[in-house]
């Protein structure tokens, strides 16, 4: 039921995702317990791109399952060639690595290295390709809130072109029948990317009132550098959530963000403060981060447990 590796969320069947959800709920209920499922197992965390919450979240998940974390951050200059990396991976396996959680900037990198050594690889985010555990924890967070996914519409706003989270959500949200509308400036929203089941718009104010969930994506300046946007201020004026747009939101609409949030770009400080003051339960950012630990415990459990 569960694949050996997890790079592409589409490799998980709906029932496999369902099982991850219920396992994550189990771990959340017992959040103060420590388990021994990964006792004696060494899980390598290898993050080749900056990451705080994903890495820490995986690290906590491994520890709560009783496993040992080995951090391996490459000296990038000596790891440029695939062949060197193969040696390094073989060394890690010889030293007792049982699985690797990997983050890399290049789409397809995990596909490459998973053919080099015979242990499971789990994506911690892979360039603009996919970020499967992020989509899973988002699903979990909504369901944990009692949201009926088949009845909601998600408005995803931001840098769709460079978003691995969006690409994982094309499948994740569709599995449970949630509607999805993508919103971005045209340069960040190539229509060829949009699957048939997903709708899109260039104008946020047109679709904002329909959203049960507003999912904000970070503007990824580090992946741009191509002059795609004239200025962040202009982006923010057109696509940022500000106090005026708060008034357009559907009653009870929830706000999500994979983090880290650029306050003042995706959402204005005024809007955050207004929501925190009046509707703190409608901002799910921290809850997403917290649930990330339980969902990653479930993923590690179901992919690696018993092996």
């Amino acid at each position: 039921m569960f694949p050996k590796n997890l790079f592409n969320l589409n490799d998980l069947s709906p029932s496999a995702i369902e099982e991850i959800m219920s396992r994550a709920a189990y771990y959340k209920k017992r959040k103060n317990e420590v388990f021994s499922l990964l006792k004696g197992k060494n899980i390598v965390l290898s993050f080749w791109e900056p990451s705080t919450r994903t890495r820490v979240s995986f690290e906590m998940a491994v520890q709560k399952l009783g496993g040992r974390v080995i951090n391996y951050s490459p000296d990038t200059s000596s790891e440029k060639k695939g062949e060197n990396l193969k040696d390094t991976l073989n060394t890690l396996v010889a030293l007792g690595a049982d699985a690797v959680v990997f983050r890399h900037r290049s789409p397809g990198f995990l596909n490459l290295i998973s053919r080099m050594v015979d242990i499971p690889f789990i994506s911690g985010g892979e360039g603009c390709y996919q970020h499967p555990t992020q989509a899973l924890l988002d699903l979990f967070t909504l369901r944990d809130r009692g949201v009926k996914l088949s009845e909601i519409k998600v408005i995803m706003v931001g840098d769709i072109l460079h978003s691995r989270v969006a690409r994982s959500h094309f499948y994740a949200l569709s599995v449970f029948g949630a509607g999805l509308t993508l919103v971005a400036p045209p340069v960040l929203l190539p229509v060829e990317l949009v699957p048939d089941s997903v709708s899109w718009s260039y104008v946020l104010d047109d679709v904002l009132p329909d959203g049960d969930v507003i999912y904000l994506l970070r503007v990824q300046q580090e992946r741009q550098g191509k002059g795609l946007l004239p200025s962040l201020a202009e982006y923010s004026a057109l696509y940022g959530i500000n106090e005026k747009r708060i008034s357009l939101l559907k009653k009870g609409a929830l706000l999500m963000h994979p983090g880290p949030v650029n306050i003042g770009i995706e959402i204005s400080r005024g809007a955050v403060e207004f929501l925190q003051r009046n509707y703190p339960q409608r901002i799910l950012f921290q809850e997403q981060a917290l649930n990330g630990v339980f969902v990653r415990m479930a993923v590690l459990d179901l992919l690696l447990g018993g092996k």
Partner: protein
Amino acid sequence: MDLLLKGGILYDPENGWEGPAEVLIRGSRIEAVSLTLGPVDVPALDLQGKIILPGMVDMHVHLREPGYEGKETIATGCAAAVAGGITAVACMPNTDPPVDNKEIICYIKERSRQADLARVYPIGAITRNIDGKEIAPMWEMAQEGARGFSDDGNPVTDSGVMLRAMQYALNLGLPVISHCEDLSLAAGGVVHAGAHGYRLGLPVITSASEAVMVAREILLQKEVKGKLHLAHLSAKESVELLRWAKSTGTNVTAEVTPHHLLLTEEAVGDFNTNVKMNPPLRTSTDKEALQKALAEGVIGVIATDHAPHSLLDKEEDFLSAPFGVIGLETALPLLWTKLVGEGLLSPGEFVDRFSSAPARLLGIPGGSLEPGSPADLVVIDPHTEHIVSSERFYSLGRNTPFEGWRLKGYPVMTMVDGDIKMWQGKVKGFSKDFPAIKRILQAKE
């Protein structure tokens, strides 16, 4: 070698022949072609059930030597060519050092003489160092045997430089071959700007990045009126521009590769680096437009863009792996099976596009078995099916996107200049058990 080929079917449109024929070879030349030649004093080879074609002429090949002998050498590339029924290749100048002077032309000619397999015609660089800045010494290179000019792999970005190069080549009567790509539009891309590429999260190459340069070259050609050839077209927009150019009397030719004729962007699958090439595979609409243009002769030439890389070169993530796929050993059976076999091209049209037309364009021997012409030919077996297996290639490259395909029409004999270079998959000088002619004749009796 003196030899009579009998019992086979010959397709030689340039010589007006389509049907059963006996072909008499004396020394290095074709002496006669006829339905029956009557008794002759030379040994005969029975080719019952086989098809005889003029040898294929591949005008777009990367032989990698000098400089990248780990990827391919002139000898291994030529072995791959004759194994694939290709008797002449034109090799691209992006070697190290690049082919931008007569000494390198001489070196390539000398190395191909030593290899003694396929004929090799060097393509000289348009600009020194292939950097798009200063025109290379074209006349000197032409004197030593360059048959055309290209900065293939790199576009000539500066329109003024391209215009002057086309004007300069006018004097030499040789084609300028353009790799059409606007780098500012291709911007680091590795796959087509379609659904599949975008889903993989890879940077994309739009069709316009090719088509805007196709448009530029056509407009320059309208002023220069020389010989312009457009390499490896991939986009339907380029085809539309080419149609317009031809309908307005512009002298322009173009080529298409087997992979662009047969594959679409989905072939990249989950980041298969053996399906990474430039220009990239595009959509089924593009593929169909290319097939149609080839059938109508708007695109007049098939060329492989054979671009070998070592296993290690391709054993990288998709972004880092080099562009290029190989084609010499698969092109003939592939297109015989998929284009001729499915009625998209007649056998005669196929021979024209992959033999006669490129030979005419480069002004080289081949492309026909007219009496008096060099005996460059290939015999194919249209009935037996083989599975493409890169392990068995003579090329040092294994980077084929067609691994595992089942094909018919594999060559069983390749002859260059009256000499058998390949017999039933064995290449002269490469296979230890390459048979003597006596054995070949006995085997068939």
